Protein backbone atom coordinates (compact mmCIF):
# COMPACT_ATOMS: atom_id res chain seq x y z
CA UNK A 1 0.00 0.00 0.00
CA UNK A 2 2.75 2.42 1.03
CA UNK A 3 4.81 1.31 -1.93
CA UNK A 4 1.97 1.91 -4.30
CA UNK A 5 1.32 5.37 -2.90
CA UNK A 6 4.97 6.24 -3.32
CA UNK A 7 5.04 5.04 -6.91
CA UNK A 8 1.89 7.00 -7.63
CA UNK A 9 3.37 10.10 -6.05
CA UNK A 10 6.55 9.73 -8.04
CA UNK A 11 4.50 9.45 -11.23
CA UNK A 12 2.60 12.59 -10.31
CA UNK A 13 5.83 14.50 -9.68
CA UNK A 14 7.27 13.26 -12.97
CA UNK A 15 4.11 14.37 -14.76
CA UNK A 16 4.29 17.85 -13.24
CA UNK A 17 7.96 18.22 -14.16
CA UNK A 18 7.39 16.92 -17.69
CA UNK A 19 4.47 19.26 -18.23
CA UNK A 20 6.51 22.22 -17.03
CA UNK A 21 9.48 21.46 -19.27
CA UNK A 22 7.30 20.74 -22.31
CA UNK A 23 5.36 23.95 -21.82
CA UNK A 24 8.57 25.98 -21.89
CA UNK A 25 9.84 24.02 -24.88
CA UNK A 26 6.64 24.49 -26.87
CA UNK A 27 6.46 28.13 -25.85
CA UNK A 28 9.98 28.85 -27.06
CA UNK A 29 9.59 26.91 -30.32
CA UNK A 30 6.21 28.35 -31.15
CA UNK A 31 7.28 31.93 -30.42
CA UNK A 32 10.35 31.58 -32.66
CA UNK A 33 8.33 29.85 -35.40
CA UNK A 34 5.91 32.72 -35.28
CA UNK A 35 8.70 35.26 -35.75
CA UNK A 36 10.13 33.32 -38.68
CA UNK A 37 6.72 32.96 -40.34
CA UNK A 38 5.91 36.61 -39.79
CA UNK A 39 9.16 38.04 -41.10
CA UNK A 40 10.07 35.43 -43.68
CA UNK A 41 6.72 34.46 -45.09
CA UNK A 42 4.37 37.29 -44.09
CA UNK A 43 2.06 34.88 -42.37
CA UNK A 44 1.53 33.41 -38.94
CA UNK A 45 -0.26 30.73 -36.99
CA UNK A 46 -3.63 32.20 -36.11
CA UNK A 47 -3.96 30.55 -32.71
CA UNK A 48 -0.31 30.91 -31.67
CA UNK A 49 -0.58 34.13 -29.68
CA UNK A 50 -3.61 32.98 -27.74
CA UNK A 51 -1.96 29.63 -27.09
CA UNK A 52 1.22 31.29 -25.85
CA UNK A 53 -0.71 33.43 -23.42
CA UNK A 54 -2.63 30.47 -22.06
CA UNK A 55 0.62 28.57 -21.63
CA UNK A 56 1.89 31.39 -19.41
CA UNK A 57 -1.05 30.69 -17.11
CA UNK A 58 -0.29 26.98 -17.11
CA UNK A 59 3.39 27.57 -16.33
CA UNK A 60 2.34 29.87 -13.49
CA UNK A 61 0.14 27.25 -11.87
CA UNK A 62 2.15 24.11 -12.50
CA UNK A 63 5.38 25.89 -11.61
CA UNK A 64 3.78 27.09 -8.39
CA UNK A 65 2.54 23.58 -7.68
CA UNK A 66 6.09 22.22 -7.97
CA UNK A 67 7.35 25.14 -5.88
CA UNK A 68 4.91 24.07 -3.17
CA UNK A 69 6.31 20.55 -3.27
CA UNK A 70 9.86 21.88 -2.96
CA UNK A 71 8.98 24.64 -0.48
CA UNK A 72 10.39 27.26 -2.83
CA UNK A 73 7.71 29.91 -2.53
CA UNK A 74 8.75 33.48 -1.82
CA UNK A 75 7.94 34.44 1.77
CA UNK A 76 8.22 37.64 3.72
CA UNK A 77 9.28 35.76 6.83
CA UNK A 78 10.66 38.40 9.18
CA UNK A 79 9.65 36.96 12.51
CA UNK A 80 10.26 33.24 12.36
CA UNK A 81 14.05 33.40 12.23
CA UNK A 82 14.07 35.06 15.65
CA UNK A 83 11.77 32.50 17.25
CA UNK A 84 12.95 29.65 19.45
CA UNK A 85 12.85 26.21 17.82
CA UNK A 86 9.67 24.93 19.44
CA UNK A 87 7.69 28.11 18.67
CA UNK A 88 8.98 28.02 15.15
CA UNK A 89 7.84 24.40 14.84
CA UNK A 90 4.31 25.31 15.90
CA UNK A 91 4.33 28.39 13.68
CA UNK A 92 5.32 26.31 10.65
CA UNK A 93 2.43 23.94 11.26
CA UNK A 94 0.03 26.86 11.56
CA UNK A 95 1.35 28.47 8.41
CA UNK A 96 0.94 25.21 6.49
CA UNK A 97 -2.63 24.72 7.67
CA UNK A 98 -3.42 28.34 6.82
CA UNK A 99 -1.89 27.96 3.36
CA UNK A 100 -3.91 24.79 2.81
CA UNK A 101 -7.09 26.67 3.72
CA UNK A 102 -6.37 29.59 1.39
CA UNK A 103 -5.44 27.25 -1.49
CA UNK A 104 -8.63 25.30 -0.84
CA UNK A 105 -10.61 28.52 -1.02
CA UNK A 106 -8.90 29.46 -4.29
CA UNK A 107 -9.57 25.99 -5.71
CA UNK A 108 -13.25 26.20 -4.79
CA UNK A 109 -13.85 29.62 -6.32
CA UNK A 110 -11.73 28.91 -9.40
CA UNK A 111 -13.87 25.83 -9.91
CA UNK A 112 -16.92 28.06 -9.66
CA UNK A 113 -15.44 30.31 -12.33
CA UNK A 114 -14.66 27.39 -14.63
CA UNK A 115 -18.20 26.11 -14.16
CA UNK A 116 -19.58 29.49 -15.14
CA UNK A 117 -17.48 29.52 -18.30
CA UNK A 118 -18.46 25.94 -19.06
CA UNK A 119 -22.12 26.89 -18.96
CA UNK A 120 -21.65 29.78 -21.39
CA UNK A 121 -18.85 28.42 -23.56
CA UNK A 122 -16.52 30.56 -25.63
CA UNK A 123 -13.43 29.63 -27.61
CA UNK A 124 -9.98 30.58 -26.37
CA UNK A 125 -8.19 29.62 -29.59
CA UNK A 126 -8.81 27.29 -32.52
CA UNK A 127 -11.47 24.92 -31.18
CA UNK A 128 -10.27 24.86 -27.57
CA UNK A 129 -12.93 26.19 -25.20
CA UNK A 130 -11.93 28.78 -22.61
CA UNK A 131 -13.07 26.68 -19.67
CA UNK A 132 -10.56 23.96 -20.56
CA UNK A 133 -7.71 26.47 -20.43
CA UNK A 134 -8.98 27.68 -17.08
CA UNK A 135 -9.39 24.19 -15.66
CA UNK A 136 -5.74 24.16 -14.61
CA UNK A 137 -6.54 26.73 -11.90
CA UNK A 138 -8.85 24.69 -9.63
CA UNK A 139 -6.82 21.53 -10.20
CA UNK A 140 -3.49 23.12 -9.30
CA UNK A 141 -4.88 24.93 -6.26
CA UNK A 142 -6.56 21.72 -5.14
CA UNK A 143 -3.27 19.86 -5.25
CA UNK A 144 -1.51 22.74 -3.50
CA UNK A 145 -4.07 22.64 -0.70
CA UNK A 146 -3.55 18.90 -0.27
CA UNK A 147 0.21 19.38 -0.31
CA UNK A 148 0.19 22.06 2.39
CA UNK A 149 -2.17 19.96 4.46
CA UNK A 150 0.08 16.91 4.18
CA UNK A 151 3.12 19.00 5.00
CA UNK A 152 1.38 20.08 8.20
CA UNK A 153 0.47 16.47 9.01
CA UNK A 154 4.03 15.30 8.43
CA UNK A 155 5.25 18.00 10.79
CA UNK A 156 2.76 17.02 13.46
CA UNK A 157 3.36 13.27 13.37
CA UNK A 158 6.99 13.28 12.44
CA UNK A 159 8.57 16.34 14.05
CA UNK A 160 12.15 15.18 13.53
CA UNK A 161 12.06 14.37 9.85
CA UNK A 162 10.82 17.76 8.70
CA UNK A 163 12.30 17.60 5.23
CA UNK A 164 9.83 15.03 3.96
CA UNK A 165 8.22 15.38 0.58
CA UNK A 166 4.56 15.19 -0.11
Amino acid at each position, binding site marked *: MLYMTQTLLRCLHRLE*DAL*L*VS*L*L*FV*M*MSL*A*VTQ*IVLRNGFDTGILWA*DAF*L*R*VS*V*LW*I*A*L*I*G*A*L*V*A*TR*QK*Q*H*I*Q*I*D*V*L*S*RFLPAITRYI*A*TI*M*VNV*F*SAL*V*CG*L*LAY*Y*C*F*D*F*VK*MEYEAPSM*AFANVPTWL*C*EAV*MPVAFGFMAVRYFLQALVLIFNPVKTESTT
Partner: protein
Amino acid sequence: MIVLLVMALLGAPLFVVLAGAAALGFYHQETSLTVLGVELYRLVDTPILLALPLFTFAGYLLGEGNTSQRLVRLIRALMGWMPGGLAIVAFCTCAFFTAFTGASGATIVALGALLYPALKQAGYPERFSLGLVTTSGSLGLLLPPSLPLILYAIIAQQLPQGSTVSIEAMFKAGLLPALVMIVLLSIYGYWVTRQHHVPLQSFSWQELKGAAIEAKWEIPLPLFVLGGIYSGIFAVSEAAAVTALYVTIMTVLIHREISLKQLVQIMRESMVMVGAILLILAVAMAFTNWLIEAEVPTQLFDVVKQYVDSKWTFLLLLNLFLLILGCFLDIFSALVIMVPLLLPIAVGYGIDPIHLGIIFLANMELGYCTPPVGMNLMIASYRFKKSMTELYHTTIPFLLVLMVAVLIITYWPWLSLALL
Protein backbone atom coordinates in the same frame (compact mmCIF):
# COMPACT_ATOMS: atom_id res chain seq x y z
CA MET B 1 -6.64 40.80 8.96
CA ILE B 2 -4.43 40.30 12.00
CA VAL B 3 -4.29 36.57 11.30
CA LEU B 4 -3.04 37.39 7.80
CA LEU B 5 -0.35 39.72 9.08
CA VAL B 6 0.85 37.21 11.68
CA MET B 7 0.90 34.45 9.09
CA ALA B 8 2.89 36.68 6.74
CA LEU B 9 5.45 37.44 9.41
CA LEU B 10 5.67 33.79 10.40
CA GLY B 11 6.65 32.87 6.87
CA ALA B 12 3.48 32.06 4.96
CA PRO B 13 4.07 32.13 1.19
CA LEU B 14 3.50 35.59 -0.21
CA PHE B 15 0.91 34.38 -2.71
CA VAL B 16 -1.12 32.87 0.13
CA VAL B 17 -1.00 36.12 2.09
CA LEU B 18 -2.01 38.23 -0.91
CA ALA B 19 -4.76 35.81 -1.93
CA GLY B 20 -6.05 35.85 1.63
CA ALA B 21 -5.99 39.64 1.69
CA ALA B 22 -7.81 39.88 -1.66
CA ALA B 23 -10.40 37.32 -0.56
CA LEU B 24 -10.97 39.18 2.68
CA GLY B 25 -11.29 42.49 0.85
CA PHE B 26 -13.77 41.20 -1.71
CA TYR B 27 -15.74 39.39 0.99
CA HIS B 28 -15.96 42.66 2.88
CA GLN B 29 -17.29 44.37 -0.26
CA GLU B 30 -19.88 41.62 -0.64
CA THR B 31 -18.44 40.63 -4.00
CA SER B 32 -18.67 36.96 -4.94
CA LEU B 33 -15.22 35.41 -4.46
CA THR B 34 -15.51 33.91 -7.93
CA VAL B 35 -13.90 37.22 -8.84
CA LEU B 36 -10.62 35.60 -7.75
CA GLY B 37 -10.93 33.16 -10.65
CA VAL B 38 -11.72 35.97 -13.10
CA GLU B 39 -8.77 38.00 -11.86
CA LEU B 40 -6.29 35.12 -11.92
CA TYR B 41 -7.32 34.32 -15.47
CA ARG B 42 -6.34 37.87 -16.43
CA LEU B 43 -2.77 36.57 -16.59
CA VAL B 44 -3.87 35.45 -20.04
CA ASP B 45 -4.86 39.00 -21.01
CA THR B 46 -1.33 40.23 -20.35
CA PRO B 47 0.60 39.15 -23.44
CA ILE B 48 3.76 40.88 -22.28
CA LEU B 49 4.15 38.24 -19.55
CA LEU B 50 5.47 35.86 -22.17
CA ALA B 51 8.83 37.63 -21.89
CA LEU B 52 9.20 36.60 -18.26
CA PRO B 53 9.63 32.82 -18.51
CA LEU B 54 11.78 33.13 -21.62
CA PHE B 55 14.21 35.72 -20.25
CA THR B 56 14.42 33.93 -16.91
CA PHE B 57 15.24 30.64 -18.59
CA ALA B 58 17.94 32.35 -20.69
CA GLY B 59 19.36 33.88 -17.52
CA TYR B 60 19.45 30.53 -15.72
CA LEU B 61 21.27 28.97 -18.66
CA LEU B 62 23.83 31.77 -18.80
CA GLY B 63 24.37 31.39 -15.07
CA GLU B 64 25.10 27.68 -15.43
CA GLY B 65 27.47 27.86 -18.37
CA ASN B 66 30.92 29.42 -18.53
CA THR B 67 29.74 32.71 -19.98
CA SER B 68 30.89 34.49 -16.82
CA GLN B 69 34.53 33.53 -17.45
CA ARG B 70 34.49 34.60 -21.08
CA LEU B 71 32.77 37.83 -20.13
CA VAL B 72 35.31 38.73 -17.45
CA ARG B 73 38.20 37.99 -19.80
CA LEU B 74 36.71 40.15 -22.57
CA ILE B 75 35.86 43.15 -20.42
CA ARG B 76 39.18 42.87 -18.64
CA ALA B 77 41.04 42.98 -21.93
CA LEU B 78 38.88 45.92 -22.95
CA MET B 79 39.02 48.04 -19.79
CA GLY B 80 41.55 46.47 -17.45
CA TRP B 81 44.30 48.95 -18.39
CA MET B 82 42.45 51.94 -16.95
CA PRO B 83 43.31 53.20 -13.47
CA GLY B 84 41.00 51.34 -11.12
CA GLY B 85 40.65 48.99 -14.05
CA LEU B 86 39.79 45.70 -12.49
CA ALA B 87 37.22 47.30 -10.17
CA ILE B 88 35.58 48.96 -13.16
CA VAL B 89 35.70 45.67 -15.02
CA ALA B 90 33.97 44.02 -12.08
CA PHE B 91 31.20 46.63 -11.97
CA CYS B 92 30.54 46.42 -15.70
CA THR B 93 30.51 42.62 -15.92
CA CYS B 94 28.33 42.30 -12.85
CA ALA B 95 25.86 44.86 -14.17
CA PHE B 96 25.62 43.13 -17.52
CA PHE B 97 25.35 39.67 -16.02
CA THR B 98 22.75 40.68 -13.44
CA ALA B 99 20.57 42.25 -16.10
CA PHE B 100 20.21 38.82 -17.68
CA THR B 101 20.21 36.59 -14.63
CA GLY B 102 18.01 38.95 -12.64
CA ALA B 103 19.83 39.42 -9.32
CA SER B 104 18.89 35.89 -8.34
CA GLY B 105 22.27 35.38 -6.72
CA ALA B 106 23.77 33.97 -9.91
CA THR B 107 26.05 36.99 -10.25
CA ILE B 108 27.72 36.48 -6.88
CA VAL B 109 27.96 32.75 -7.33
CA ALA B 110 29.26 32.76 -10.91
CA LEU B 111 31.14 36.06 -11.17
CA GLY B 112 32.12 36.63 -7.55
CA ALA B 113 34.08 33.42 -7.56
CA LEU B 114 36.12 34.74 -10.48
CA LEU B 115 36.42 38.36 -9.49
CA TYR B 116 37.12 38.06 -5.78
CA PRO B 117 40.44 36.18 -6.12
CA ALA B 118 41.37 38.26 -9.17
CA LEU B 119 40.84 41.51 -7.28
CA LYS B 120 42.89 40.34 -4.30
CA GLN B 121 45.62 39.09 -6.58
CA ALA B 122 45.75 42.44 -8.36
CA GLY B 123 46.48 44.12 -5.02
CA TYR B 124 43.08 45.43 -4.00
CA PRO B 125 42.46 45.34 -0.23
CA GLU B 126 40.52 42.33 1.04
CA ARG B 127 37.70 44.43 2.49
CA PHE B 128 37.22 46.34 -0.73
CA SER B 129 37.24 43.18 -2.87
CA LEU B 130 34.71 41.43 -0.69
CA GLY B 131 32.47 44.48 -0.48
CA LEU B 132 32.63 44.90 -4.23
CA VAL B 133 31.56 41.39 -5.17
CA THR B 134 28.80 41.47 -2.55
CA THR B 135 27.26 44.78 -3.66
CA SER B 136 27.71 44.12 -7.36
CA GLY B 137 25.39 41.12 -7.13
CA SER B 138 22.45 43.44 -7.64
CA LEU B 139 24.06 46.04 -9.86
CA GLY B 140 22.33 45.95 -13.22
CA LEU B 141 18.82 45.67 -11.85
CA LEU B 142 18.02 48.80 -13.85
CA LEU B 143 19.38 47.38 -17.10
CA PRO B 144 17.22 45.45 -19.56
CA PRO B 145 16.06 42.73 -19.57
CA SER B 146 16.08 42.56 -15.78
CA LEU B 147 13.10 40.83 -14.28
CA PRO B 148 12.20 43.59 -11.78
CA LEU B 149 12.00 46.15 -14.60
CA ILE B 150 9.53 43.90 -16.42
CA LEU B 151 7.54 43.25 -13.26
CA TYR B 152 7.27 46.93 -12.42
CA ALA B 153 5.87 47.68 -15.86
CA ILE B 154 3.32 44.88 -15.57
CA ILE B 155 2.13 45.95 -12.13
CA ALA B 156 1.99 49.63 -13.08
CA GLN B 157 -0.16 48.84 -16.12
CA GLN B 158 -2.84 47.41 -13.83
CA LEU B 159 -3.38 50.88 -12.41
CA PRO B 160 -5.30 53.65 -14.13
CA GLN B 161 -2.44 56.09 -13.42
CA GLY B 162 0.24 53.80 -14.79
CA SER B 163 -1.02 53.09 -18.29
CA THR B 164 2.00 54.80 -19.89
CA VAL B 165 4.48 52.45 -18.23
CA SER B 166 5.40 50.01 -20.97
CA ILE B 167 8.23 47.52 -20.71
CA GLU B 168 9.97 49.27 -23.58
CA ALA B 169 9.78 52.56 -21.67
CA MET B 170 11.21 50.97 -18.52
CA PHE B 171 14.01 49.41 -20.52
CA LYS B 172 14.98 52.81 -21.86
CA ALA B 173 14.46 54.63 -18.57
CA GLY B 174 16.88 52.45 -16.62
CA LEU B 175 19.92 52.96 -18.85
CA LEU B 176 21.24 56.36 -17.68
CA PRO B 177 20.51 55.77 -13.97
CA ALA B 178 22.36 52.45 -14.15
CA LEU B 179 25.22 54.29 -15.82
CA VAL B 180 25.30 56.83 -12.97
CA MET B 181 25.59 54.00 -10.46
CA ILE B 182 28.39 52.32 -12.37
CA VAL B 183 30.27 55.58 -12.93
CA LEU B 184 30.06 56.62 -9.26
CA LEU B 185 31.20 53.20 -8.11
CA SER B 186 34.02 53.28 -10.65
CA ILE B 187 35.18 56.66 -9.35
CA TYR B 188 35.22 55.15 -5.87
CA GLY B 189 37.17 52.16 -7.22
CA TYR B 190 39.65 54.53 -8.86
CA TRP B 191 40.04 56.42 -5.59
CA VAL B 192 40.81 53.15 -3.77
CA THR B 193 43.53 52.24 -6.30
CA ARG B 194 45.11 55.62 -5.71
CA GLN B 195 45.14 54.93 -1.97
CA HIS B 196 46.62 51.44 -2.23
CA HIS B 197 48.91 51.68 -5.26
CA VAL B 198 47.32 48.86 -7.18
CA PRO B 199 49.63 48.24 -10.15
CA LEU B 200 48.18 49.00 -13.57
CA GLN B 201 47.67 46.37 -16.21
CA SER B 202 48.91 47.01 -19.70
CA PHE B 203 46.66 46.91 -22.70
CA SER B 204 47.22 44.14 -25.24
CA TRP B 205 45.58 43.92 -28.65
CA GLN B 206 46.47 40.26 -28.73
CA GLU B 207 44.63 39.53 -25.49
CA LEU B 208 41.62 41.58 -26.62
CA LYS B 209 41.50 39.66 -29.88
CA GLY B 210 41.79 36.34 -28.09
CA ALA B 211 39.12 37.28 -25.58
CA ALA B 212 36.82 38.55 -28.31
CA ILE B 213 37.19 35.36 -30.31
CA GLU B 214 36.49 33.26 -27.24
CA ALA B 215 33.39 35.33 -26.45
CA LYS B 216 32.23 35.71 -30.05
CA TRP B 217 28.97 33.92 -29.38
CA GLU B 218 28.14 36.03 -26.33
CA ILE B 219 28.87 39.39 -27.96
CA PRO B 220 25.64 39.46 -30.06
CA LEU B 221 23.47 38.85 -26.97
CA PRO B 222 22.97 42.49 -25.96
CA LEU B 223 22.27 43.19 -29.62
CA PHE B 224 19.21 40.96 -29.55
CA VAL B 225 17.82 42.54 -26.47
CA LEU B 226 18.83 46.17 -26.78
CA GLY B 227 19.35 46.53 -30.49
CA GLY B 228 16.29 44.48 -31.32
CA ILE B 229 13.99 46.39 -29.04
CA TYR B 230 15.37 49.90 -29.53
CA SER B 231 15.55 49.63 -33.29
CA GLY B 232 12.05 48.21 -33.41
CA ILE B 233 12.89 44.92 -35.08
CA PHE B 234 11.58 42.85 -32.19
CA ALA B 235 8.86 43.26 -29.63
CA VAL B 236 9.97 42.46 -26.09
CA SER B 237 8.39 39.01 -26.04
CA GLU B 238 9.99 38.23 -29.41
CA ALA B 239 13.38 39.35 -28.18
CA ALA B 240 12.90 37.05 -25.20
CA ALA B 241 12.09 34.07 -27.42
CA VAL B 242 15.07 34.72 -29.69
CA THR B 243 17.39 35.22 -26.71
CA ALA B 244 16.21 32.01 -25.05
CA LEU B 245 16.67 29.96 -28.19
CA TYR B 246 20.03 31.55 -28.97
CA VAL B 247 21.39 30.95 -25.47
CA THR B 248 20.18 27.35 -25.61
CA ILE B 249 21.94 26.73 -28.91
CA MET B 250 25.07 28.51 -27.70
CA THR B 251 25.48 26.67 -24.41
CA VAL B 252 24.23 23.25 -25.48
CA LEU B 253 25.29 22.89 -29.11
CA ILE B 254 28.18 25.30 -29.66
CA HIS B 255 30.06 25.43 -26.36
CA ARG B 256 28.69 22.06 -25.22
CA GLU B 257 28.94 23.19 -21.60
CA ILE B 258 25.50 21.96 -20.70
CA SER B 259 24.28 18.45 -21.34
CA LEU B 260 20.75 17.70 -22.48
CA LYS B 261 20.02 16.26 -19.07
CA GLN B 262 21.23 19.44 -17.39
CA LEU B 263 19.22 21.48 -19.88
CA VAL B 264 16.00 19.76 -18.87
CA GLN B 265 16.91 20.27 -15.24
CA ILE B 266 17.54 24.00 -15.81
CA MET B 267 14.29 24.35 -17.76
CA ARG B 268 12.46 22.82 -14.85
CA GLU B 269 14.20 24.86 -12.16
CA SER B 270 13.73 28.14 -13.95
CA MET B 271 10.04 27.42 -14.53
CA VAL B 272 9.50 26.62 -10.86
CA MET B 273 10.87 30.05 -10.02
CA VAL B 274 8.81 31.67 -12.81
CA GLY B 275 5.69 29.83 -11.64
CA ALA B 276 6.15 31.10 -8.11
CA ILE B 277 6.60 34.68 -9.33
CA LEU B 278 3.74 34.55 -11.85
CA LEU B 279 1.34 33.22 -9.26
CA ILE B 280 2.28 36.04 -6.89
CA LEU B 281 1.76 38.46 -9.74
CA ALA B 282 -1.66 37.01 -10.57
CA VAL B 283 -2.79 37.13 -6.98
CA ALA B 284 -1.37 40.63 -6.66
CA MET B 285 -3.52 41.68 -9.63
CA ALA B 286 -6.60 40.47 -7.78
CA PHE B 287 -5.42 42.30 -4.68
CA THR B 288 -4.78 45.47 -6.69
CA ASN B 289 -8.22 45.17 -8.24
CA TRP B 290 -9.70 45.18 -4.77
CA LEU B 291 -7.54 48.18 -3.79
CA ILE B 292 -8.89 50.08 -6.78
CA GLU B 293 -12.47 49.10 -6.06
CA ALA B 294 -12.14 50.06 -2.40
CA GLU B 295 -10.39 53.30 -3.43
CA VAL B 296 -7.59 52.64 -0.98
CA PRO B 297 -4.89 54.55 -2.92
CA THR B 298 -7.10 57.64 -3.18
CA GLN B 299 -7.78 57.62 0.55
CA LEU B 300 -4.12 57.06 1.29
CA PHE B 301 -3.20 59.99 -0.93
CA ASP B 302 -5.64 62.24 0.93
CA VAL B 303 -4.01 61.31 4.22
CA VAL B 304 -0.46 61.78 2.97
CA LYS B 305 -1.39 65.11 1.36
CA GLN B 306 -2.36 66.52 4.74
CA TYR B 307 1.15 66.06 6.04
CA VAL B 308 3.37 66.42 2.99
CA ASP B 309 2.77 69.28 0.63
CA SER B 310 5.81 69.48 -1.63
CA LYS B 311 6.91 67.00 -4.23
CA TRP B 312 10.50 67.23 -3.01
CA THR B 313 9.66 66.42 0.59
CA PHE B 314 7.59 63.52 -0.66
CA LEU B 315 10.51 62.21 -2.69
CA LEU B 316 12.83 62.40 0.31
CA LEU B 317 10.33 60.56 2.49
CA LEU B 318 9.80 58.06 -0.30
CA ASN B 319 13.52 57.32 -0.40
CA LEU B 320 13.63 56.86 3.33
CA PHE B 321 10.58 54.64 3.31
CA LEU B 322 11.86 52.48 0.47
CA LEU B 323 15.24 52.14 2.11
CA ILE B 324 13.65 50.80 5.29
CA LEU B 325 11.25 48.66 3.26
CA GLY B 326 14.22 47.21 1.39
CA CYS B 327 15.71 46.09 4.69
CA PHE B 328 12.76 43.82 5.36
CA LEU B 329 11.20 42.89 2.05
CA ASP B 330 12.76 41.24 -0.94
CA ILE B 331 12.31 43.06 -4.22
CA PHE B 332 9.43 40.91 -5.56
CA SER B 333 7.34 41.22 -2.42
CA ALA B 334 8.04 44.94 -2.25
CA LEU B 335 7.00 45.40 -5.88
CA VAL B 336 3.68 43.59 -5.72
CA ILE B 337 2.67 44.98 -2.35
CA MET B 338 3.86 48.57 -2.51
CA VAL B 339 3.66 49.70 -6.15
CA PRO B 340 -0.17 49.62 -6.30
CA LEU B 341 -0.26 51.81 -3.20
CA LEU B 342 2.64 54.13 -3.95
CA LEU B 343 2.15 54.77 -7.65
CA PRO B 344 -1.18 56.62 -7.42
CA ILE B 345 0.18 58.76 -4.57
CA ALA B 346 3.38 59.58 -6.45
CA VAL B 347 1.41 60.50 -9.57
CA GLY B 348 -0.71 62.73 -7.33
CA TYR B 349 2.50 64.61 -6.49
CA GLY B 350 3.29 64.99 -10.16
CA ILE B 351 5.96 62.30 -10.34
CA ASP B 352 6.18 60.42 -13.62
CA PRO B 353 5.25 56.76 -12.99
CA ILE B 354 8.26 55.66 -15.05
CA HIS B 355 10.58 57.78 -12.90
CA LEU B 356 8.94 56.31 -9.81
CA GLY B 357 9.75 52.82 -11.07
CA ILE B 358 13.42 53.69 -11.43
CA ILE B 359 13.50 55.29 -7.95
CA PHE B 360 11.78 52.24 -6.52
CA LEU B 361 14.15 49.73 -8.07
CA ALA B 362 17.25 51.82 -7.32
CA ASN B 363 16.29 51.86 -3.64
CA MET B 364 15.56 48.15 -3.69
CA GLU B 365 19.01 47.57 -5.12
CA LEU B 366 20.39 48.90 -1.84
CA GLY B 367 18.09 46.57 0.06
CA TYR B 368 19.99 43.59 -1.32
CA CYS B 369 22.90 44.55 0.91
CA THR B 370 21.14 45.67 4.08
CA PRO B 371 20.45 43.45 7.06
CA PRO B 372 18.48 41.55 8.13
CA VAL B 373 17.11 40.25 4.82
CA GLY B 374 19.84 41.25 2.36
CA MET B 375 19.96 38.49 -0.20
CA ASN B 376 23.43 39.48 -1.44
CA LEU B 377 24.77 39.30 2.11
CA MET B 378 23.35 35.84 2.60
CA ILE B 379 24.63 34.45 -0.69
CA ALA B 380 28.07 36.05 -0.31
CA SER B 381 28.33 34.79 3.25
CA TYR B 382 27.59 31.30 2.04
CA ARG B 383 29.81 31.54 -1.03
CA PHE B 384 32.90 33.15 0.53
CA LYS B 385 32.51 31.61 3.99
CA LYS B 386 32.45 34.96 5.79
CA SER B 387 30.22 36.01 8.65
CA MET B 388 27.27 38.32 7.93
CA THR B 389 28.64 41.03 10.23
CA GLU B 390 31.98 41.04 8.49
CA LEU B 391 30.28 41.35 5.11
CA TYR B 392 28.05 44.08 6.43
CA HIS B 393 31.07 46.19 7.31
CA THR B 394 32.69 45.68 3.93
CA THR B 395 29.60 46.84 2.05
CA ILE B 396 29.10 50.12 3.96
CA PRO B 397 31.30 52.31 1.71
CA PHE B 398 29.62 50.88 -1.39
CA LEU B 399 26.20 51.46 0.12
CA LEU B 400 27.11 55.09 0.78
CA VAL B 401 28.20 55.56 -2.83
CA LEU B 402 25.01 53.90 -4.07
CA MET B 403 22.94 56.11 -1.80
CA VAL B 404 24.44 59.18 -3.43
CA ALA B 405 23.54 57.64 -6.79
CA VAL B 406 19.98 57.01 -5.61
CA LEU B 407 19.64 60.64 -4.52
CA ILE B 408 20.89 61.87 -7.90
CA ILE B 409 18.47 59.53 -9.68
CA THR B 410 15.60 60.66 -7.48
CA TYR B 411 16.09 64.40 -7.80
CA TRP B 412 17.11 64.48 -11.43
CA PRO B 413 14.16 62.95 -13.28
CA TRP B 414 15.77 63.83 -16.60
CA LEU B 415 18.10 60.83 -16.17
CA SER B 416 15.16 58.45 -16.23
CA LEU B 417 13.05 60.25 -18.79
CA ALA B 418 15.59 61.56 -21.32
CA LEU B 419 15.73 58.47 -23.51
CA LEU B 420 11.97 57.86 -23.68
